[in-house]
């Protein structure tokens, strides 16, 4: 039986090609995959991390950016504890689509979901979105903000670890049902982030 105290679902969204899959691979496998195909539907990865000596299992859902997979990807928003919205700092259109993604998040995700805006590919020379523009956008929409490079492993670990820490704090003060390990994944209660709001973001 797996021994973990907490299980959190993290869902990555954003235009195709911004580097969602690379971010997930970098974090879960420690590599930058060479030219893999675009994600079909939804990919599923797991990584268990430790926060304050407690095991936290992160279930990471990597979604396809294309329109035709929308009916698949949307169904994962509701049960997400954290949503990572990714754009490519060297590609203006991926930033311009953010409002569309936010609308979708509003519609399908729990309104208490932890939301993080990520500007990926900081290693690239041809930056089009200055960092402060991303920061502004995140602030205006009540999101955390981080710039990353999946290629150079910059801030990737930090991104997921901070999510784990934040979710664990939320869980502790809200007493999300804990996994005591005796429950299989089926009987286990994967709660959506419940309504009782407390100590989270202002």
């Amino acid at each position, binding site marked *: 039986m797996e021994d973990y105290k907490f299980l959190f679902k993290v869902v990555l969204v954003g235009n195709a090609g911004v580097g969602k899959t690379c971010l997930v691979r970098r974090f879960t496998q420690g590599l930058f995959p060479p030219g893999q*195909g675009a994600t*079909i*539907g*939804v990919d*599923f990865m*797991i990584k268990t991390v430790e926060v304050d000596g407690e095991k936290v299992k992160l*279930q990471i859902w990597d979604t396809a950016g294309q329109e*035709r*997979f*929308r*009916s*698949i990807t949307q*169904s*994962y928003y*509701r*049960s997400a504890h954290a949503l990572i919205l990714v754009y490519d700092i060297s590609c203006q259109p991926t930033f311009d689509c953010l409002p569309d993604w936010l609308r979708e998040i509003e519609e399908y995700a729990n309104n208490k979901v932890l939301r993080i805006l990520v500007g990926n590919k900081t290693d690239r020379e041809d930056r089009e979105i200055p960092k402060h523009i991303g920061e502004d956008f995140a602030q205006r929409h009540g999101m955390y903000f981080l710039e990353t490079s999946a290629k150079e492993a910059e801030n990737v670990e930090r991104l997921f670890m901070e999510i784990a820490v934040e979710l664990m704090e939320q869980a502790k003060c809200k007493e999300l*049902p804990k996994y005591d390990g005796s429950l299989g*994944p*089926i*009987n*286990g*209660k*994967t*709660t*959506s982030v419940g309504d009782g709001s407390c100590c989270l973001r202002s």
Partner: protein
Amino acid sequence: MSLSLLLEKYDVSTEEGLQKALSEVEKEESEVDEALSGVLSRACMLEDKLRTASQAYTKLSEVKADAQVAADMVDRTAELARDVSAKVRQLDLARSRVAECQRRVHDLIDLQLCSAGVEAAIKANDYETGAGHVSRFLSMDPGSVAAARARGAADPRDAMTRAANTLREHIVRRFEDAAQKNDDENVDKLFKLFPQIGRAEEGVRLLAKYLATKLGVEIRRLSVVAEGEGAVFADAMTRVLEAAAAAAARAAALAALAAPGLLPAALAALQPQVCAGVRRVSGALLRAAARPASALQAEPALAELALAHSTIQLYFAFLTRRTQADAASLPEAAKQAALDAVEKLIAECDLTRTAQDILGHYLELEKFFLEESVNKALKMATPQPGSTTSSLVDDVFFIARKVIRRSISTGSVEGACVVLNEVSAVLERDVTAVLRRRLRAAPPDPLPLPAPPAPRAPRLALDLTALDLTADLAHALNKDVEAQRLLFLAHLAEAEAGAEWAARLAEEAVRGAGGAARGPTDTHKVESCAAGLGAAAAALALAAEQGVAAVRAGLAPRLALWADALVQPAPLAEELEDDADAFPQALEQFSECARQHLPQHTVDALLLAVVTDVATRAEARILHHHYDREGGLAAERRCRRAAGRAGGGGARERAARLAQAASLLALERPQHAADVLRPPRLPPARVRDILARRTDFKIEDIKKLKL
């Protein structure tokens, strides 16, 4: 005998002595003579022996010389033998060279014959023979030709190559003729010649082209969707893909004759026709399945979409299996290359896109169906005046199960996962919300707990019972209230059942979708999405808990009455027995009624709540009364009976504490308190407070107690 000895022995001064000595000397002389002659004779013998020995020695040296000669001869023989075997080896070599020469001569002769033979065969339209010659040419030792050329002869291959090319052109032309005429028999026959003339790949290419053209015509015919009932689109798609599979199987059978590993190329040639055909059918299907007006109308389209998607998945699985079989005999690297090729073909072809479109559309429509159907079920479950039962949860889970099973029938783990997500959402959000609303507050007296008999005045008690009966009558008459009560209990039972349902459905889904899973990741994915149903189960269980709490709240006034009745200081002398048993009997009646409406574990939970509640209140009520010994004994008796039948677990424990408190009231003297206290003990302060309720106990005595 020495002379001195002789002289000593014989007196030589006398004649006689002299004579004797003489005779002695003579005797000795004769003895010496004898010995001497003996020695002499032996000397003779020795001489003889010596002579013989020296003769033998001479002979020995002769033998040694002979042996030396023999050894020399053996050496020389060995040397000779070595020479001979070297010669034999040379001979062997020479012979094999002769054989090779002969073969090359044969090859060269054959080559002449072959090119002549090919020309003759072409003239005679006998392509089999021609191909046989070319095959012979191709299997020739390249050394033969090289050797011939090295001796300055004209390259004998030129003529042959020319002939072979001519033959190839003829065969290709004939093949195309046969293809044009749809002459399958000749197509197969001619196809088999290509590998012989070293053109296996070209043959497979031509064959695939032929099959593709044929398939295209067939598919255009099949992809016309007939107007009619039933799964017309999915049927058309099945027909198209069956034709495609037949063509692929034929290509596979023939390609296996040519060379293993060529199948992916043939499949790639067929694929565009398949893609186009399926795209046509799916276009019509998607148009027909465009957003219907009602859940009912959506069902046929859903069935078609699921079937169509699963048919495409089966077709892909078939292609992969055929390629595996085709490449089975190849070395590992080539096998992998073939599998990679077909995987790439599948991933990049338009049919995959079509399948994704179909799945996307299916999922949208399924979500619509699910939400519409559940909304309808919720609407139907809106309580009508007088309705006493609810099939809300049954209806919803019937829909959920249908939807999940259909999603599994698409053959797509992805699709099943999405539907599991949607079902979990609907259950957790909509269904649970309704049940929570309905279970928030219980109607008055949700479960009948009989009132306690009235103390002190039996007549009044009778009157009260009569009043109670009138109230019951009023309830019965007021059907509305009664209906509300029953409906509430029905919802409570439903919420409990729903939680079990959700867990069972999750298990079923994991088992069902397992078949489509193509690896542990797929399995994990399904399990994780099915866990969403677990969350829904938890939410439903929570709603049920809320219902139980509401029942308790509804019972509160009556529980207060019972609490007071248990610790009444008034004895009812003549009805003591009945009085003491009243509470256990009331509990029995209560749980019997509860069992008619609720599952056992809910009944148990309720009983525990009731007993705990009454015991806690009763213990507190003691402090409001004053007791004499009689009154204390009566209270003690009632409480002990209650504890004796308080059911199991926590209820028994809580009632035991009450019994302990009451037994303090029944003591003869406060000093006996220690005798009735047993773990878990009441706190000392509480013990003193209770003892102080006895009017006949002295406060000083109580204070003095060591507790």
